[in-house]
C-alpha cells in the first residue's frame, strides 16, 4: 500500500523511474487509487486552466510602471522596440548624432590634427584615436582608467565588435573596422547638449537608442568581454 505522500509524489512526477513504475502498477490494480489519481489530475488541469487565464491578461499599468527601469537604467529592449528618441522629442535621433558628428567633421577638417585628439577623420569616416583608441582596445568595463569609461560590448548586426564609452564631455559608440574603431555615434554630454539639462546618470538615451538599433543578440558579460579583447576584437 502506498502512502499518500508517495502516491502524490508519483502523480507529480517526483519519483525515480523504478519507484514510479512500482506505484503505477499498484494504482492500476486498485480501482479506488485509480479514481483518486484521475480526480487529482482533473483538479490540476482545472487549476492550470483557471490560473492560466492570468497569463494572457494584459498586464496592469501599475505593475508595468513598477517594472519600468529607473532613469539610471537603460532598457535596451525597449529602446530597440521604440527606436525613437524619448527625451529630445523635437529633434530626431539621427539629427542629434549627425549634428555632433558634423561638429567633429568640421573640427577635424578645419583644425590641424593634434596627436591627442580622441577622434580622427579620414576619408569621411571618424575613427577613435589616441587615448580613446587605447581605451576601446585595452580597457574592460570593470576597470575604468583615465577619462574614458567603457560601457557595453556587443556584436552588431554585421558581426562587428562594438563598444560604448563615456568621457566627461561626450559618450559614444564605436565599432571595429579593420584594426581601428570607427565611431558610429559621438554625443556631447547631456549638459552640453541641452544647456541646463543634466541627466541623473547613466547612458544617454540617444546612445541607448543607437545601441538598441545596432546590437545583435545580448551584450557581452565580463568573461566574454575579456575573451574578445584577448582575441583582438575580431
Amino acid at each position, binding site marked *: 500500500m502506498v502512502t*499518500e*505522500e508517495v502516491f*502524490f*509524489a508519483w502523480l*507529480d512526477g*517526483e519519483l525515480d523511474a523504478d519507484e514510479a513504475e512500482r506505484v503505477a502498477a499498484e494504482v492500476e490494480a486498485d480501482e479506488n487509487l485509480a479514481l483518486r489519481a484521475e*480526480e*487529482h489530475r*482533473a*483538479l*490540476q488541469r*482545472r*487549476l*492550470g*486552466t*483557471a*490560473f*492560466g*487565464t*492570468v*497569463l*494572457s*491578461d494584459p*498586464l*496592469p499599468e*501599475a*505593475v*508595468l510602471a*513598477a*517594472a519600468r*527601469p*529607473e532613469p539610471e*537604467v*537603460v*532598457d*535596451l*529592449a525597449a529602446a530597440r522596440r521604440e527606436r525613437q528618441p524619448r527625451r529630445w522629442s523635437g529633434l530626431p535621433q539621427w539629427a542629434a548624432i549627425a549634428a555632433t558628428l558634423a561638429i567633429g567633421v568640421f573640427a577635424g577638417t578645419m583644425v590641424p590634427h593634434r596627436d591627442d585628439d580622441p577622434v580622427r577623420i579620414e576619408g569621411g569616416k571618424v575613427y577613435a584615436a589616441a587615448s580613446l583608441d587605447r581605451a576601446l582596445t585595452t580597457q574592460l*568595463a570593470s576597470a575604468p582608467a583615465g577619462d574614458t569609461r567603457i*560601457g*557595453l560590448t556587443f556584436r552588431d548586426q554585421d558581426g562587428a565588435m562594438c563598444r560604448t564609452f563615456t568621457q566627461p564631455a561626450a559618450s559614444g559608440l564605436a565599432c571595429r573596422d579593420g584594426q581601428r574603431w570607427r565611431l558610429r555615434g559621438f554625443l556631447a554630454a547631456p549638459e552640453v547638449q541641452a544647456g541646463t539639462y543634466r541627466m541623473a546618470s547613466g547612458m544617454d538615451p540617444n546612445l541607448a537608442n543607437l545601441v538598441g538599433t545596432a546590437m545583435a543578440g*545580448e*551584450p*557581452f*558579460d*565580463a568573461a566574454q568581454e575579456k575573451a574578445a579583447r584577448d582575441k583582438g576584437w575580431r
Partner: protein
Amino acid sequence: MVPTISFDSELVAILPRLRRFAHGLSRNPADADDLTQATVERALRSREQWQPGTRLDSWACRIMRNLWIDAARARSRKDKVEAPAEEGELVGEDPTSGMDASVDLGRMMAAMDRLPDEQREVVALILIEGFGYREAAEMLDVPIGTVSSRLVRGRTALLEMVGA
C-alpha cells in the same frame, strides 16, 4: 551594467508568471496585482542580491511569498474577529459544466483562500507554478517532507471544496 540589462528584461519577461503566482496566493485579483507590484518594487531594490546565472523566477517568487506572508500574518490577526467565509458556498454545484475559465478562476481563488497559508503556498508553487518539491522546499526553507505532507493536505482539501 550587463547583468543590469538582463535582470530588467528577465524581470519583465516573468511578470505574467509572477502575477499568476500572486493570484494563487491572494484572495482577489486586486490584492494579487498589489502583491505583484510590491514584489517588482522589492526585486528592483534588491537586485544586487540576485546572482546572475541563477533562476530569477524562483528568486522573485520567494520575494513575493515573503511579502505575502508578512501581509498574511497581519491579516490573520484581523480575520480572527471577522466572520468566516460561508461554509458550503463552493460545494454542491457542478463545477465544470460550460464554465468559463476566468469565472472558474474566481472560484478557485476563493477555494484557495480557505486553505491554511502553509498549504496554500505549496499548492500555488507546485500545482499552479509547476515548481518541483525540492525547489519549493528551498524557496520556503522547509524540509522536502514538509512540502510533501502540506501538499497532500492542501490538494485534498481543495478537491473537497471544488470537486473536479
